[in-house]
């Protein structure tokens, strides 16, 4: 990045404090996820029966659970799982959905119709139920859960990219490229695809929150990651049975992690859309 770009970036950050705050939150979560295991002395899986159900303290900032595991260490590990699975789901979903949208928008006709009806049918399913059914059908576990969530997110990309492609295809510069003798492959790759990237990125940021929450929901009902892996949804389930006996910290902290990650990315997605959209001010939230 050149110095000029850097200064422009700093200016945007100063002018949009909520953007700065959400970037900061994501950065902190990422640091905890990546460096937490090296910097924090407790192991997320280490059982310590002399320190069960300790409330938050200096030694254990988020307390300990029913078998004395340090919740802060588990929180950090959970951040790594949630964020990395969220990123993986969003990237694969964007690639698959983007491809379907691109093919649909360029081909038109019967293929377009068939693909879009398929997307509609997937959308008519309750997404969480579909993700659960796929996860169970494919044998459970973190990978199948991620696949199930990815599948339910594909239609959102596909429909958006399709309408984007149809819009871009009719713009004068595409016609100009055709007149200049560019072949279909060149037009698609050099002229249409680059113009869908910003839409795709913004949609991906918006769906990141959905992916993270859906993964936690699958973990919560016992699909996806299995005990004792400290995934945030699984941790909330574990906390549930202690919530009504006074040990609130077990289930509450992982939820804050989810809330922070999802809220920060949704603010980020909106802000970036506002900054990219020349008309600006759209739904400034």
């Amino acid at each position, binding site marked *: 990045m050149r110095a000029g770009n850097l200064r422009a970036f700093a200016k945007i950050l100063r002018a949009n404090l909520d953007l700065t705050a959400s970037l900061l939150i994501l950065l902190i979560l990422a640091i905890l996820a990546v460096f937490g295991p090296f910097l924090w002395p407790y192991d997320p899986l280490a059982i310590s029966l002399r320190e069960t159900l300790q409330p938050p303290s200096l030694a254990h900032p988020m307390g300990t659970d029913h078998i004395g595991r340090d919740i802060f260490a588990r929180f950090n590990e959970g951040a790594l799982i949630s964020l990395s699975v969220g990123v993986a789901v969003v990237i694969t979903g964007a690639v698959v959905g983007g491809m379907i949208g691109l093919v649909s928008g360029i081909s038109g006709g019967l293929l377009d119709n068939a693909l879009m009806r398929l997307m509609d049918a997937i959308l*008519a399913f309750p997404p969480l139920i579909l993700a659960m059914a796929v996860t169970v059908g*494919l044998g459970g576990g973190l990978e199948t859960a991620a696949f199930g969530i990815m599948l339910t997110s594909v239609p959102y990309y596909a429909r958006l990219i399709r309408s984007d492609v149809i819009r871009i295809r009719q713009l004068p510069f595409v016609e100009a490229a055709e007149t200049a003798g560019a072949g279909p492959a060149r037009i698609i790759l050099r002229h249409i695809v680059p113009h869908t990237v910003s839409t795709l990125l913004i949609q991906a940021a918006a769906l990141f929150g959905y992916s993270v929450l859906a993964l936690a929901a699958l973990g919560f009902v016992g699909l996806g990651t299995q005990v004792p892996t400290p995934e945030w949804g699984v941790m909330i389930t574990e906390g549930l049975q202690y919530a009504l006996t006074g040990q609130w910290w077990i289930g509450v902290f992982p939820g804050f992690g989810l809330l922070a990650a999802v809220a920060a990315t949704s603010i980020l997605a909106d802000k970036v859309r506002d900054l990219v959209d020349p008309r600006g001010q759209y739904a400034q939230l």
Partner: protein
Amino acid sequence: MMQAVVSRLFGSLVAVFGASIIAFLFLRVLPGNPARLVVGPLASEEALQAQMERMGLHLSLPDQYWRYITGFLQGDWGFSYGAGQPVLVQFANRLPASIELGFYAFLFAFLAAVVLGLAATYRRRPAVDAAVRALSVFGMGMPPFWLALILLVVFHEALGIFPGPGLQLSRSIEPPPVVTGFITFDALIAGDLTAFADAIHYLFLPAVALGMLPFGYLVRLLRANLLDVTNEPFILVVRSKGIGLWKTFSRHALPNAFIPTLTASGMIFAQLLGGSVLVEKVFNWPGIGSLVVDSILRKDFAVVQAFIIVSAVIYVFVNAIVDVLYGIIDPRIRN
């Protein structure tokens, strides 16, 4: 108008059939033999074959679908081998509690969104606006099952204002005679206000937990639309005619800002049924959501299939109703 409604309803029927076909194919494609799950892993090959014939699994896929869908329309929704009950009986027992919870969650989300959407835009106070926006982001970022847990910890365990999970009505109160299956409505029909108040008391926390996400979404949408509309010239004209701020909002800005919110509301209301799954689990709510999750975990796909068709029906018809409502709210799209 009538013609539009009829063609819309016909389109809805086609969509429901599409969803039923996909649900059917999808559950057949999944690995694992449903008959094997019924007879158990130790049963002989003959017993497996006999069970497959009893379940119609030896037929071709189109024949199987035909059998299923004609049966479905005649009230034979299949048999849940996990629960040992016909699926229709399970649904009849469980669906009312879920629809009632979804209804109150939606009511909470919708009313809170209108009130706070207005508060955020009414006098353009930046502090109120920022608070509403923050609430909306939090509402959309919270896992509903986690919010359910927080609400239980704070309002049940710490403060003791609201009852805990497990019941829909206090044991000391006589349940109203069943008419609709919805406890609050039945209580009103019977004129039993004590039972009504008690049922609302039990519904409140789960409804808020379930309604928070749709609330966040609706208030965000309504706020953005209200801002757009109030910047339009006709609002200036209305104001310059000497119409008060309240009347400008209630008669002119709000109806105009309502169309996108209404679209979203229809989709949200229809989705609440599927979304209630996790909140029901936390509150031990005897609804369809907990049944479906248990059925998925048991691979009891007869229940899942019926649930998918029922939620597609609800989804499609709620949206059709919303389309008809457009015409009533907005004269421009009446034709």
